[in-house]
């Protein structure tokens, strides 16, 4: 008889115990009708999107979790096959809608590898600046909504205050707050405007103090510590066998980060640390992401200081549009412009899988081209899709409240999961 039953026996009177005995003989070891299967469904404030968890509960304890997804499946990979290479970027950016620069980066690096075009240094630095700012935005939205789930309502307003500042910067450089389509195949669409550097350094100067504020609010808050420390740990081996990457894996002690392991887009020029946890429980996952914000600020600072001069996009006319003023004078520019704009860029046939370190883990983009001007297959290996498989080993045997905290710390983005 489970400890749960024995403990109740001592308090309740005999007749109930008699019923339990008959139940146990009849229904095997555990009384099954106690189990309640509920839909922790698509429309739920704590599922960070339209994730549906089929939860089997025994009182407050979660016995089994079965994630059911597909409620925001948009057929993005099918749409991508119907568009030319440039037009795929806006569609791809809407997959993992909190890490839109990373989606674009993964896709662009895959196509650039296919075409074998070299991205100029300045463009690589600009990409790193925007990606790390996007990582901060993603962690801010995660922190705001997760603290909301744990009951710290005011965190939401603090985090979204910083988010607005960063989105102003994105708007300055690309004209749009989210899904900016700032990355182009071969570099970035436009150079950053004049006031961007000053505004960015102003933001970078005050951001660490803001993250300290978040830390002061939550790190020593008894309720948050009770809810997060020691709940739903999972060791690194199980995480690796489940294919989990990103802050979840680093919180369990394995310092695997693509920016350090396989540096791309000149990440090797910057020195930054990778926050790594020890126990791999919810508190480590929270602390790792919080520390990553400091590191991202450091990277952006170094990238801004070391921003080299030079073109912001590749000079290869087969890939990038010629500058407007050239159209009036040279005939070749006009022909290149016309060819690129009407039919789009032709990519030599081949298949490439190029991974990028997104805020949630390894985001890999597989592009297959059959030589035409439309990609034959675009697949995004989304970190949240694979990390979601780790929810049931984490949550089995925990309380419902811990399941909500774990789901918050898992940071699933349903756009990326359902594609």
């Amino acid at each position: 008889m489970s400890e749960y039953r024995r403990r109740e026996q001592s308090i309740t009177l005999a007749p109930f115990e008699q019923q339990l005995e008959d139940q146990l003989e009849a229904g095997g070891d555990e009384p099954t009708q106690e189990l309640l299967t509920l839909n922790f469904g698509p429309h739920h404030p704590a599922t960070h999107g339209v994730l549906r968890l089929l939860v089997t509960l025994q009182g407050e304890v979660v016995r089994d979790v079965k994630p059911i997804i597909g409620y925001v499946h948009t057929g993005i990979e099918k749409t991508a096959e119907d568009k030319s290479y440039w037009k795929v970027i806006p569609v791809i950016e809407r997959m993992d809608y909190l890490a839109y620069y990373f989606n674009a980066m993964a896709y662009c690096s895959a196509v650039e590898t296919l075409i074998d075009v070299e991205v100029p240094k300045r463009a690589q630095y600009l990409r790193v600046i925007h990606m790390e700012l996007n990582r901060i935005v993603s962690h801010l939205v995660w922190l705001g909504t997760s603290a909301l789930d744990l009951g710290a309502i005011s965190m939401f307003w603090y985090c979204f205050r910083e988010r607005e500042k960063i989105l102003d910067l994105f708007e300055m450089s690309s004209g749009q707050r989210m899904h900016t389509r700032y990355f182009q195949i071969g570099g970035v669409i436009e150079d950053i405007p004049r006031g961007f550097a000053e505004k960015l350094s102003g933001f970078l100067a005050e951001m660490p103090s803001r993250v300290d504020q978040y830390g002061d609010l939550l790190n020593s808050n008894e309720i948050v510590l009770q809810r997060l420390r020691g709940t739903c740990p999972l060791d690194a081996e199980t995480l690796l066998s489940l294919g989990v990457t990103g802050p979840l894996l680093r919180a369990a002690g394995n310092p695997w980060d693509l920016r350090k392991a396989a540096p791309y887009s000149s990440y090797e020029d910057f020195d930054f640390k990778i926050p790594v946890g020890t126990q791999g429980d919810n508190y480590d996952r929270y602390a790792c992401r919080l520390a990553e914000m400091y590191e991202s600020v450091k990277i952006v600072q170094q990238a801004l200081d070391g921003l080299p001069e030079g073109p912001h996009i590749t000079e290869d006319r087969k890939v990038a549009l010629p500058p407007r003023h050239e159209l009036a004078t040279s005939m070749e520019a006009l022909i290149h412009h016309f060819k690129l704009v009407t039919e789009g860029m032709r990519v030599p046939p081949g298949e490439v899988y190029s991974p990028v370190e997104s805020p949630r883990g390894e985001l890999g983009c597989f592009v297959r081209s059959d030589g035409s001007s439309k990609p034959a297959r675009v697949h995004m290996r989304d970190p949240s899709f694979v990390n979601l498989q780790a929810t049931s080993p984490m949550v089995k045997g925990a309380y419902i409240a811990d399941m909500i905290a774990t789901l918050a710390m898992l940071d699933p983005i349903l756009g990326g999961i359902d594609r």
Partner: protein
Amino acid sequence: MLRTYLPAIVFLILGGAVGGAFAVLNSVIGPRRATPHKQDPYECGLPSEVKRGLRFGISFYLIAMLFILFDIEVVFLYPIAIELRAYGSFALVETIVFIVLLFVAFAYVWRRGALEWR
């Protein structure tokens, strides 16, 4: 006698009136459109298969009873706390005895392990 209780009575009447008005207004003004799934139980947007006669675990009732026990204790402390000086030291001793008695109950419940959920 009425004079002393007038504020309480006015308070009751006003409370009842405002509450009743809202309830009645709601049914009078609110449009009524029966749709097929309106009365279904809400389970995150999905049809719910939870049967009516579901047996809850005993721990739920246990926690509820304990809460009521100690909540009433706090309710009793409020009037005393407001007028402690007027009642003099006798009320103080009385309250301490009251709290100690309930503390014994609390210790018993704690030792028997009813406070942990599992």
